[in-house]
């Protein structure tokens, strides 16, 4: 063991100890005595004895000199340069990680208050040299406070935690506790797990063990006879012509009940009960109920299915939003000489779309102006001449602004070079035709099922594109920016995607009528056309509800295209948004770009833009897994995460690998030295004052006595 100093140059300041030495020397008495005839009179007056004077001076001198030396030592930043003493010098404190479950199930009964009490008891039990990290966890884990010994901070942080509607996952919390304790230099480490031990949150496959020497304390908040009835989901089906009727089907579960439960279920629209009914839910099972169809209002409204209240209120209601469906507006440009029968299959396919519906409009490609693309989601160039000039520039601008183009090459596409603006979108030219009329024709043999466009067709239940026969198509040469999504069996591209600006262009080389192929006669044709239109329009359905614990990107998930429509909210530049959480909390998001809003509360989030004067609703429901109150035995969890024996070598390695700066910072001896110096100075002040007062009193008394004697 040896002492070392981080800033040894400060030790030069030890010369300052000469100051008290000088003071004491200059104020000390002369050592050579003054001869005097007689001390007869001097004895009669009060005086300080040699002994007292020396004692006082020596004591004060030592205090002052020691204080100066300690101050110098504090500035020199001392530390103990020995590995084994590294942890010892930081004291015998504990490093405690308090894991407090605040998932939705903690709202059951009095679990939350008991959990908070347990956490508070742990905090109150901390000593001054102990440190604690408070972690609140649900499906994620967040360190509410860093490791601190400041109990008021911990108490305030604890008071700010509320149970959320999120699910339960123990792994993130245990991993966080492990990470915190792994880097702790404290020899005494402890993790306190305060939870209701929901089984759904526990995965026993790869439990996370705490670092060696960590004590594991579990606080079990589960209830032995917990029962719960929950609305775990709804299904919204459109009915009626045009989908203007909505059929709501609710799914109700009864968890951990011994007998079947008779429970009332109510459908509410905008807080008003629309229909109520009683259903019987078998014990530990689920039941569904279908409400009478309701008319879909012309605006976005709140819908909620509610069951009778029980001990866990979070899952007693299931919210959703209901809105009018918005048709994707498509403009289909055809050759002026084309006959109506040429787009029969395409029109029929698009007209029967309901999720979402498609609004289609046909126009000759040569008869449109530059403003023809306004309010459109997708422009379909159906075997039509590619527009040039102002219309071509307008089409390019339309795509760059986020619009979609679906180009279908057919018999009338020709092989001439396309106008400049069109070349940016489609490449140079349509290319010559390829005839596959020999034999059974060509097939689509290579499809990129990983691509979002074909992803719905993947899997064993996917559509079969190989049944379609292609007898002719165009040998289109894709530009470098193109991504070929499908090829014929001879390698010629069948479908390609080009991303231009914020929009996308899809190019299909085999026509849409059944003249060049029999694809329109295949079952896959309908969904394929719908998918092409949706993908070209960058359509993303807005869910009627979201599960708590998820996130939404305010700029991306709530953005809509310029074609607008009911229920749509914000454009590409949402700007400042005001978010109102179900709990009533309001906050402002200055820049929604890239802002991800965590949906942790059960209920409806209202997000609005003051400048645009529009708002939207986001329904958030408690994670269905939280309704299952089955527990995993605390002993199982405790045993699974229990740490091994304390490994002293770890601490030694930890300290040995520390740099002197880190050692000094961890030990922080300078702080103690500084406090000692200040205490010495305080003691010096008190002693000097007391001696001075005593001398004054003694002089007064002796003078009075001497006067009395005379």
């Amino acid at each position, binding site marked *: 063991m040896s002492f070392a100093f981080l800033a040894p140059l400060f030790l030069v300041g030890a010369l300052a100890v000469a100051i008290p030495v000088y003071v004491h020397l200059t104020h000390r008495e002369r050592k050579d005595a*003054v001869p005097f*005839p*007689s*001390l007869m009179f001097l004895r009669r007056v009060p005086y300080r004895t*040699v002994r007292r004077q020396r004692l006082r001076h020596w004591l004060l001198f030592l205090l002052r000199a020691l204080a100066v030396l300690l101050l110098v030592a504090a500035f020199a930043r001392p530390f103990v340069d020995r590995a084994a003493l590294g942890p010892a010098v930081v004291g015998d404190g504990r490093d405690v990680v308090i894991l407090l479950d605040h998932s939705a199930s903690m709202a059951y009964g009095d679990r939350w208050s008991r959990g908070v009490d347990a956490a508070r008891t742990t905090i109150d039990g901390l000593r001054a040299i102990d440190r604690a990290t408070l972690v609140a966890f649900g499906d994620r884990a967040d360190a509410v406070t860093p490791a601190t010994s400041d109990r008021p901070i911990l108490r305030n942080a604890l008071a700010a935690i509320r149970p959320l509607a999120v699910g339960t996952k123990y792994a993130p919390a245990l991993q966080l506790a492990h990470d915190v304790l792994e880097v702790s230099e404290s020899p005494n480490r402890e993790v306190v797990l305060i939870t209701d031990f929901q089984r759904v949150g526990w995965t026993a496959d790869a439990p996370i063990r705490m670092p060696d020497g960590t004590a594991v304390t579990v606080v079990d908040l589960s209830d032995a006879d917990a029962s719960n009835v929950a609305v775990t989901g709804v299904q919204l089906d459109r009915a009626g012509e045009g989908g203007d009727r909505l059929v709501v089907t609710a799914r109700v579960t009864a968890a951990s009940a011994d007998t079947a439960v008779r429970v009332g279920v109510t459908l509410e629209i905008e807080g008003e009960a629309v229909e109520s009914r009683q259903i019987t839910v078998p014990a530990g099972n689920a039941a569904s109920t279908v409400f009478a169809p309701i008319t879909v209002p012309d605006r976005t409204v709140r819908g909620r299915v509610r069951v009778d209240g029980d001990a866990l209120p979070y899952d007693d209601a299931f919210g959703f939003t209901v809105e009018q469906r918005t048709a994707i507006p498509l403009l289909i440009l055809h050759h002026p000489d084309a006959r109506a029968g040429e787009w029969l299959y395409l029109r029929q396919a698009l007209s029967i779309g309901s999720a979402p519906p498609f609004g289609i409009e046909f126009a000759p490609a040569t008869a449109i102006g530059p403003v023809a693309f306004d309010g459109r989601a997708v422009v379909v160039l159906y075997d039509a001449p590619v527009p040039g000039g102002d219309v071509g520039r307008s089409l390019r601008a339309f795509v760059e602004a986020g619009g979609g183009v679906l180009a279908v090459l057919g018999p009338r596409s020709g092989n001439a070079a396309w106008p400049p603006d069109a070349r940016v979108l489609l490449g140079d030219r349509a290319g010559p035709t390829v005839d596959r009329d020999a034999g059974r024709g060509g097939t689509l043999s290579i499809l990129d099922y990983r691509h979002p466009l074909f992803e719905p067709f993947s899997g064993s239940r996917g559509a079969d594109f190989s049944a379609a026969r292609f007898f002719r198509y165009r040998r289109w040469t894709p530009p470098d920016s193109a991504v070929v999504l499908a090829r014929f069996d001879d390698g010629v591209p069948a479908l390609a995607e080009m991303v231009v600006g914020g929009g996308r262009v899809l190019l299909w080389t085999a026509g849409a009528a059944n003249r060049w192929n029999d694809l329109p006669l295949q079952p896959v044709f309908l969904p394929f056309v719908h998918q092409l239109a949706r993908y070209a329009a960058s359509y993303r359905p807005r869910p009627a509800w979201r599960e708590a614990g998820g996130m939404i990107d305010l700029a991306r998930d709530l953005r809509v295209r310029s074609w607008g429509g009911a229920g749509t909210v914000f454009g590409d530049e949402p700007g400042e948004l005001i978010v109102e959480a179900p709990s009533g909390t309001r906050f402002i998001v200055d820049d929604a770009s890239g802002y991800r809003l965590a949906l942790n509360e059960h209920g409806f989030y209202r997000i609005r833009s003051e400048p645009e004067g529009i708002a939207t609703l986001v329904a958030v429901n408690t994670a269905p897994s939280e309704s299952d109150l089955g527990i995993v035995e605390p002993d199982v969890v405790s045993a699974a995460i229990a740490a091994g024996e304390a490994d002293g070598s770890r601490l030694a390695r930890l300290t040995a690998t520390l740099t002197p700066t880190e050692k000094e910072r961890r030990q922080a001896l300078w702080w103690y030295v500084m406090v000692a110096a200040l205490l010495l100075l305080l003691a010096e002040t008190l002693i000097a004052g007391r001696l001075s007062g005593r001398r004054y009193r003694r002089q007064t008394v002796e003078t009075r006595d001497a006067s009395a004697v005379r």
Partner: protein
Amino acid sequence: MTATRFLDPVMLARIANLELLARTVVDGFINGLHHSPYFGLSVDFAEHRPYMPGDDIRRVDWRVYGRTDRFYVKEFEADTNANFVVLLDTSGSMRYGSGPISKLDYAKFLAACLSYFSRRQRDRVGLVTLTDRIVDFVPASAKHLDIVLHTLDRAEADGPGSLEPPLLRVTEALRRRSILLLLSDLYEDPDVVLRSVARLRARGHDVIVFHVLDPAEIAFPFDEAAPFEDLETGERMPVVPETLRDEYREQMQRHLSALGEHMTHSQVDYRLFETSQPLDHALFAYLSRRERLSRVR
């Protein structure tokens, strides 16, 4: 102010020979007294008194008998053949001197001068040096001036001082009435000093007390805190002068006042001398004091 008028003790200290010093002082002093109204204090004739049986018939004034037919005896002051004995305190405290000369030096000068002066009046001179005991004893004799001066010359201040024991011995030793000149700094309780002196007075001695002090002993001009060492006992005591000065001065003045008062009541000639005073001042004060007392008598 001339050098012969006021004899600076510092200058006199350069004269090693006490006899020469005494002669310098006394002769100069006497010369200076030629016009003094106090001239003739050294009178020969004192008075006539009727003859008493037992008187020496040689002392009968026959001229008066011739005129008055009665026997009168003529008495002379000189005929008293007084013994002049110097009682010199040589305790350690007399060694002190804040200036060039110590109290002992000053006392030696006084003793030498007055012995020389007395011898010129044909008194017998003697010397007793004392501390807390008698150190040297020179019996009074008309021939002992040299011995007195020699003894004075080699006297050194040392040892503790206490007046009462040696003065008690002096009281017992001096059977003949004498003029006793006590030279001391009198660091004794005034009552003890008076008791010792009164004992001498009771034996018929004419006691003169010259209280010799250094100016520093009265003014206490020290500034620096230091241990003060008692010259008699060697005891040391830390002293912060600025805090003690007023108290010390008050104690000293009270001591001097008590001595003066007690001596006056006991008809003892008492005079305080500071070693910075010229010696002829001391002689002048002494003689004027003797003159006043003789008139009273």
